[in-house]
């Protein structure tokens, strides 16, 4: 199936350019460090705001990883060739979106120990943490892949991609930060579930919507 | 909730004033923009070569 082929190609590409994702990880970790300086040595506050900083760092890093994912297509004008294949734009979109989500998930998981160390914000509920990161990464990746496809055809991608993406993913940011916060700081009333449902709803809406619209964005 | 808010006319004036100014400014700009665009494409504005 074409989706599997696209996905395999994307993951292979990511593996081959893994030094780039290492650089993005360093960027993300540096961001977390800088955020901690904005608070100072106030361990209470650091722990309280750790989830917010984690997701902000991930959001900022996402613009880097997303723009990389279309870099190759833009360079060789490979996009047009790919789209000549039948039923191609859908599988291209989902292949790239899944690969991007996967990359962001890895990044998020890698940033957890950084968060634990810098903000003293640890948790034993690892599966829940990873679940939230997967859902949040998926929420960033769906509209992110659509807008990256659009903006990589323009010179001003660096400015336009965050400009378009960030207001859109406010619900993801809100829900992911709240859910992460409840996991780390405790959840006596079991509210995390509602935030996770919100994340799932956002993902469901945007993975279908952006898949439908992708074709119009890459057509010529 | 707790008590009553007294006075406050300056806030009302500010809100109304800003709104009327902004909407008015935009309306005038829209009208002028439309007339300028019309003038550009109307046959009488055609120049030689």
């Amino acid at each position, binding site marked *: 199936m074409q989706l599997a082929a696209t996905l395999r190609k994307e993951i292979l590409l990511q593996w081959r350019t893994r030094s780039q994702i290492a650089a993005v990880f360093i960027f993300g970790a540096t961001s977390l460090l800088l955020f901690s300086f904005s608070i100072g040595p106030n361990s209470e506050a650091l722990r309280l705001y750790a989830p917010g900083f984690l997701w902000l760092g991930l959001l900022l890093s996402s613009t880097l990883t997303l723009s990389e994912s279309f870099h190759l297509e833009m360079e060789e004008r490979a996009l047009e060739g790919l789209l000549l294949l039948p039923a191609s*734009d*859908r599988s291209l979109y989902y292949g790239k979106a899944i690969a991007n989500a996967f990359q962001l998930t890895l990044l998020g998981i890698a940033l957890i120990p950084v968060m634990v160390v810098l903000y003293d914000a640890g948790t034993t509920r690892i599966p829940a943490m990873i679940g939230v990161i997967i859902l949040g990464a998926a929420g960033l990746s769906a509209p992110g892949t*659509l*807008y990256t496809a*659009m903006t990589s055809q*323009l*010179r*001003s991608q660096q400015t*336009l991609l965050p*400009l*378009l993406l*960030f*207001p*859109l993913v*406010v*619900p993801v940011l*809100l*829900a992911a930060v*709240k859910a992460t916060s409840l996991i780390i700081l405790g959840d006596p009333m079991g*509210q995390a579930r509602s935030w996770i449902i*919100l994340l799932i*709803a*956002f993902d469901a*809406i*945007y993975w279908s*919507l*952006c898949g*439908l*619209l992708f*074709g*119009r*964005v890459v*057509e010529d | *909730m707790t*008590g*009553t*808010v*007294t*006075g*406050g*006319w300056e*806030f*009302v004036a*500010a*809100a*109304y004033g*800003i*709104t*009327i100014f*902004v*909407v008015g400014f*935009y*309306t005038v700009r*829209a*009208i002028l923009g*439309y007339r300028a*665009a*019309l003038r*550009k*494409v109307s046959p009488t504005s055609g120049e030689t070569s």
Partner: protein
Amino acid sequence: MTGISEVSFAAAETEDQPRIRRGPLPYILLAVGTLVILTGAWIGLFVAPAETFQGNTQRIMYIHVPTAWAAMLALMFAFVSSFAYLFNGKWAWDARLEASIEIGTLLALLLCIQGSIWAKPTWGVWWDWDPRLTTSAVMVFAFAGILALRKFVEEPGRRATWSAVATIVAFIDVPVVYFSVNWWNSLHQTQSTVGNIAPAFRVPLYTSAIGFVILLTGLIMLRARTSEIRLSEEIAPPLEPVASVGGIRS
């Protein structure tokens, strides 16, 4: 899905040209709308009684609520225009899209300013994380971003298609944002903007609201005309068909 992508070819082949529209209708709407708004404002400011708890600052609602309705209507029309353009490719819809996004963004910005001015005497802060106010702020950024996108795309067909896609994505996000902030707000139990208006205050409110909608219609119509004229300048008119195929006209 194939239906949607097939239409893009149809748009290129049909001879749809942006039209230069004239006529007094927008001006009439603007004039009538302005009059009605001023009437409503006068009633709201000088005739209606002050509210019990908020005092006179409650009068801001007579302009705030109509602005909110107008903003939503403008963006809803943008949403409809997006679909219309994607399905039939007529330039008029791109013109209307540009107009309604611009006006909707401006109104949403006004909403934030008005809400802020209302919040200060009422709650003592310039910004309360009220779901409506916060959603308005997100809307301003989301749709201003689409306006920025339009500035960076030079080819008109692409600009139209991409703005339409972005508008659909952004508009669908609006209820999601509202819902998330609402839920987040209710957990923190922050103050919220007073929503319901008692019957005694309805006359000035509905008057202003009707006036705003009339003004809005006139503004969108006018602005869309300007956009369409500019589009017609961008897109070259079709060439005259040659009388004989491959032949030379004698």
